[in-house]
């Protein structure tokens, strides 16, 4: 109950501001001001990077719905999100269950699963470009052990390249989600499991009725991370899909970047309008998740 009981340290006047202002100032300057500027810029029209901006009202926004590349970019974001939810999270939960019972090499497995997470995404992109290289890349070479005449341009196939990039995203993040689920499982009281076993529950029943429900709160965390993360994809897509036609290679963030900075396009206003939409999307989705888990999630 705020206001009823006092804070641990009673302070006078402006002492709290001495603690907060430095952080607030930087945050204001480098996060909030650019955010606001982005909104402002979306109302202007630039004819090239060095031209003077002309006020154009909401023209940029009214052009967006007719832009096929923009929609494809958003669609790609959504596809990647759906993939994360439908493929990454179940695999991660499955791995966490496999690692739940003591077995040989447990911490080795765990460390190996999570380690891709700490590698710079730029390095990941370069490494996987070599793995996918059509001539002597790792995958092509592996498949040629069985089928010597195998040929496939992994990343240069417009319809499929997004899927191959998704494989890389899984490589980076499944282990991380797995560790989150493992953390949830360590909170399961051993007594519960022993009691269930004494009552004659099979391992499968314990898994189905005890362990999986207990992972649910953490699944929410994973879902939020996936949703927020899927709107932020940039490095990997920018570096790996660069060679494709425009409508096949973009996600929202790369499209914004290319509109503004590539080929001296300098379409700052239009790019800002895309950025504003991206921000509103992120905000809306986050609020929706928080709200839905507040009302429906009975789990602690």
């Amino acid at each position: 109950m705020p206001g009823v009981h006092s804070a641990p340290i009673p302070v006078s006047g402006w002492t709290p501001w001495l603690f907060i202002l430095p952080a607030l100032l930087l945050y204001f300057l480098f996060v909030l001001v650019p955010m606001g500027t982005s909104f402002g810029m979306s109302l202007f029209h630039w004819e090239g990077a060095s031209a003077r901006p002309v006020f154009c009202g909401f023209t940029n926004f009214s052009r967006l719905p007719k832009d096929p590349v923009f929609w494809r970019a958003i669609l790609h974001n959504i596809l990647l999100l759906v993939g994360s939810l439908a493929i990454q999270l179940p695999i991660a939960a499955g791995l966490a269950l496999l690692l739940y019972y003591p077995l040989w090499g447990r911490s080795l497995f765990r460390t190996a699963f999570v380690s891709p997470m700490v590698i710079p995404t730029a390095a990941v992109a370069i490494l996987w470009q070599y793995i996918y290289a059509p001539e002597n890349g790792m995958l092509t070479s592996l498949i040629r052990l069985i089928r010597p005449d195998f040929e496939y341009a992994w990343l240069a196939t417009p319809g499929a390249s997004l899927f191959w990039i998704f494989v890389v995203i899984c490589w980076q993040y499944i282990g991380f989600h797995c560790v989150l689920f493992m953390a949830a499982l360590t909170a399961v009281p051993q007594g519960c499991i022993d009691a269930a076993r004494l009552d004659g529950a099979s391992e499968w029943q314990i898994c189905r009725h005890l362990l999986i429900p207990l992972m649910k709160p953490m699944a929410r965390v994973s879902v939020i991370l996936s949703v927020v993360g899927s709107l932020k994809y940039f490095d990997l897509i920018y570096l790996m899909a660069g060679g494709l036609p425009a409508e096949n290679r973009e996600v929202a963030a790369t499209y914004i970047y290319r509109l503004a900075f590539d080929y001296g396009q300098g379409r700052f206003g239009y790019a800002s309008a895309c950025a504003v939409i991206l921000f509103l999307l992120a905000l809306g989705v986050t609020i929706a998740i928080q709200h839905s888990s507040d009302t429906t999630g009975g789990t602690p």
Partner: protein
Amino acid sequence: MRPRTIARHLLLLAFFLYSAYPLIWMFLCACRMEGEAQARPLALPRFWTADNFLAVFRNPLFGQAYLNSLLLCTLCVAAVVLLASAAAFAFSMMDFRWKRPLFLLFLLGMMIPVHVTLIPLNRMVGAMALKESLLPLAGPYIAFALPVSILILRGAFSQIPKELLDAARMDGCGPWTIFCRIALPLVRPALATVIIYNFLSMWNEYAFALTLLGPGTRTLPLALSEFSGEHGVLLTQTCAALSLVIVPLLLVFVFAQKQIVNGLAAGAIKE
């Protein structure tokens, strides 16, 4: 061994190969001769060589970029720790006007896709003619690290028993002394999380570096992508460069797994 145990091991081993084999392949490539990498890219190297690593060391791109990244990340993380711990201390220990809205304002920063701010920041930097230094990155790096750091540290501060703080006040400690002498030493694990997590994300950051730095200034991820795109650079050399970037990180990771995962998860867990 029971069949079930074997099946579990097989499944885990399959995923282990998916996780680890690309990295092993990379490291083996880095130790090969180029000709061999073309002819038999999967086998163990017939001749192990360090030439590729030496070639990377000789390339002027890398040394400077390594130093740049090290300097930038160290200073920014130090700033984040100072600013975020002070702010988090106030948010958890003191009452003041607009406390709640201000805290929510900070949390908002975790939802903002950073790319929304790229264009204004780029114009800002251009206007200030800072493009030839690392300075343009410092502001955004620190500012965008604040929300999650404040969240983590506020949680840690609120765990400190109230009796301890009362006792300190009885002994005549002011808020500043309590902060430096009592509160900060007690939240050391959270500080470790904040330091390691932020260092890692700044070390790996790519989009801001790409947008805000001039052509002569590079952080490590920029240097990497530039190096691999350079004309005449070989697969083996790129793999050596990648190994030189990745292996130290993996070593850090093995020792600081817990803090890293904590930091990454903190963003999603509601206060």
